[in-house]
């Protein structure tokens, strides 16, 4: 019961109220009902589409790469030949424990173009200064790298847990049938991992669509909106421009996008009846 009350007070009420807000615009200090105006404005707002596009680029490029990497890591963690296994597992999982803001700040220092450690190290091997956070393309790449650093280990651990539930008889049978390493992976491991892959895909998709902390701290959405995500744009509208109605409309648009993508993923990857 307390849980329900808390949920109602801190989740349900804000969710409902922000919908009401999304139908209003504050004019001269008074919330004025404007119907679907905020949503109509959304459709014609180039920055909203830029934000959506940036978010989708991360979704389409970073998430699959990260999950492939996580699957590889999970296999390695599970390998009988790996020594000091728990050290590696802990090492890759540890980034997940660091606070979003803390690691964002650390990376912004590391990736500083003029005085960052990364460019200093690259300089030692003769590579010139890389504009990690100040060039539109490089800023996107940096954001992808930082996200990968933070979340790969986490996904690997989820995949690993599933990996360990695949019965070893299946591998024995595959060996008897003469399947090679690749055949075993494709026909035994991957099908066995399917539920975990679905889970990590959906979680990563939701996480990516809501991504805020990293671009906010690393680049503030810049340069020239190259790393503007929906979360950052929402924040700017609410807390920099005081346009709560429009920000709420963005949030609802985002919820719809997440819902639709989630549905598609369950269709494509989910258990078939």
């Amino acid at each position, binding site marked *: 019961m307390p849980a329900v009350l808390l949920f109602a007070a801190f*989740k349900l009420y804000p969710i409902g109220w922000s919908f009401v807000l999304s139908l209003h615009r504050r004019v001269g200090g008074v919330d004025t009902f404007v119907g679907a105006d905020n949503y109509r*404005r959304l459709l014609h707002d180039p920055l909203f589409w830029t934000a959506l596009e940036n978010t989708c680029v991360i979704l389409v490029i970073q998430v699959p790469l990260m999950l492939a990497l996580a699957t590889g890591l999970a296999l390695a963690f599970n390998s009988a030949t790996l020594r000091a296994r728990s050290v590696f597992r802990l090492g890759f999982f540890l980034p997940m424990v660091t606070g979003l803001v803390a690691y964002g700040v650390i990376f912004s220092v590391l990736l500083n173009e003029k005085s960052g450690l990364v460019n200093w190290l690259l300089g030692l091997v003769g590579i010139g200064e890389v504009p990690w956070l100040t060039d539109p393309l490089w800023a996107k790449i940096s954001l992808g790298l930082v996200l990968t650093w933070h979340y790969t280990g986490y996904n690997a651990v989820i995949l690993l847990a599933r990996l360990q539930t695949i019965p070893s008889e299946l591998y024995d049978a595959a060996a008897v049938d003469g399947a090679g390493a690749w055949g075993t992976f494709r026909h035994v491991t991957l099908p066995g991992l399917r539920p975990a892959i679905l889970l990590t895909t959906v979680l990563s998709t939701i996480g990516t669509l809501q991504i805020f902390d990293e671009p906010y701290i690393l680049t503030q959405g810049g340069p020239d909106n190259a790393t503007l995500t929906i979360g950052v744009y929402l924040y700017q509208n609410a807390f920099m*421009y005081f346009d709560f109605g429009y920000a709420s409309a963005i*949030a609802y648009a985002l*919820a719809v996008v997440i819902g639709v993508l989630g549905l598609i993923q369950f269709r494509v990857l*989910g258990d078939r009846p």
Partner: protein
Amino acid sequence: MNVSRRKVLGIGGALAAGAGLAGLTACSGTGSAGAGSGSAGDGRKGDISVWSWAGPAAELRALVPDFNKRYPDIKINVQDIGNPAIWNKITTAMAAGGAGLADVLHIGVDYLPGYVEKFPDGLADLGKLGATDYKDSFAQGLWQTVAPKGDRVSALPWEANSAGFYYRADIFEESGVDAAALETWDDTLEAGKKIKQKTGKYLLGIDKPASQADAANFFQMLLQLQGAFYFNLDGDITLASPAAVKAMTIIKELNDAGLVSDLAGGWNALISSIKKGTAAVLPWPTWFGGIIEETVPGEAGKWGVRLPPAVSRGGTQATTVNSTHLAIAGSSKQQAAAWKFVEFVLTRPESQVRIYKGKGIAPALMTAYDDLVFHTPSEFFRGQKKGEVFLEALKAPSPAFNYSPDYARALKVVADAQTKVLLKGADPASALQKAAEQLAEQTGRKVL
């Protein structure tokens, strides 16, 4: 397995997660409803909290002992919230009807109109507490900023910053350029070329990828030197005006000539470039002089200061580029006591002189300038009287600039346009035209 049920649950989870973000914005509520619920209270005693940031906060704190000699029963608690954190904190507190808001708030000109427009009762009317007595005490144009319609006084001016031009006199001498003789920015462009050739130094620095909201400071100064701004007094968008195109064109020419260093990373990059001596000129306002002295105390005698060159020959070199103010929360129950502190800090020359001596924050209060400190030669600036340089600017007629509640949005589109011009070689006129149209789309304002 129960596939359909799992699907439904999964989607539900995804939706809830999305809507959780929606919840982020839900705290705005009806805002102002409760914000005007404050009252004057007893003017002789109270427990007053003050929000400010960094240097100014320290100076406010330093004034408290003197204040308590006169008002022993009013306790003052100054909190350094940090800038820009303070703006979020004020916004959320005002949106919550003033819950948790301090009694006295330090607010910049860039945020003041926004708060006033979005939260009409968020700030107390200081006119009722006695502020109108000081109507003519402040630098030109500032009363219009705090009381644009003349009926309601939302704040009282604290600092008034004029456009400035700090330069490394030793570098100018080495290059054989007379800094004092620069009349226009075209002259300055030629001077910059000489400096680059002789010493390898840049003329000035700009945060090209706009890592910070104020990345277009220099652009804004060039605009204000022409008496122009992002909005006109009617609130129409003037971002694509000839003056704006001229300002952006100057920046492009300086950049194309290789005279602009990149201050990517914002404030920290700026400070480290001062330490390294990357550029010969810092086209920053009054308050920045104190920062330079603090950053490179060992370079005393190497620096000079003057007002910036004009945009066109014979044009003005003086303009007030920004101001900050103290306001009282509309929700405060001790407005009378809070006013005592505001009055003590802002209308008493001794207080302002002390603050100037501490952190070089230039008073908006004109009587403070009678003090000798503004008329003594500065060792750091080669015996120049820095105070007089800027006092001359404050006395010059300065048009009122309409920051409007949409200033933050304007800054953003301007910074993006500047990034396009500097990093992608965009044409100033078309980049600004696009910026103006985008701003119009967002705000429903007209483009002139």
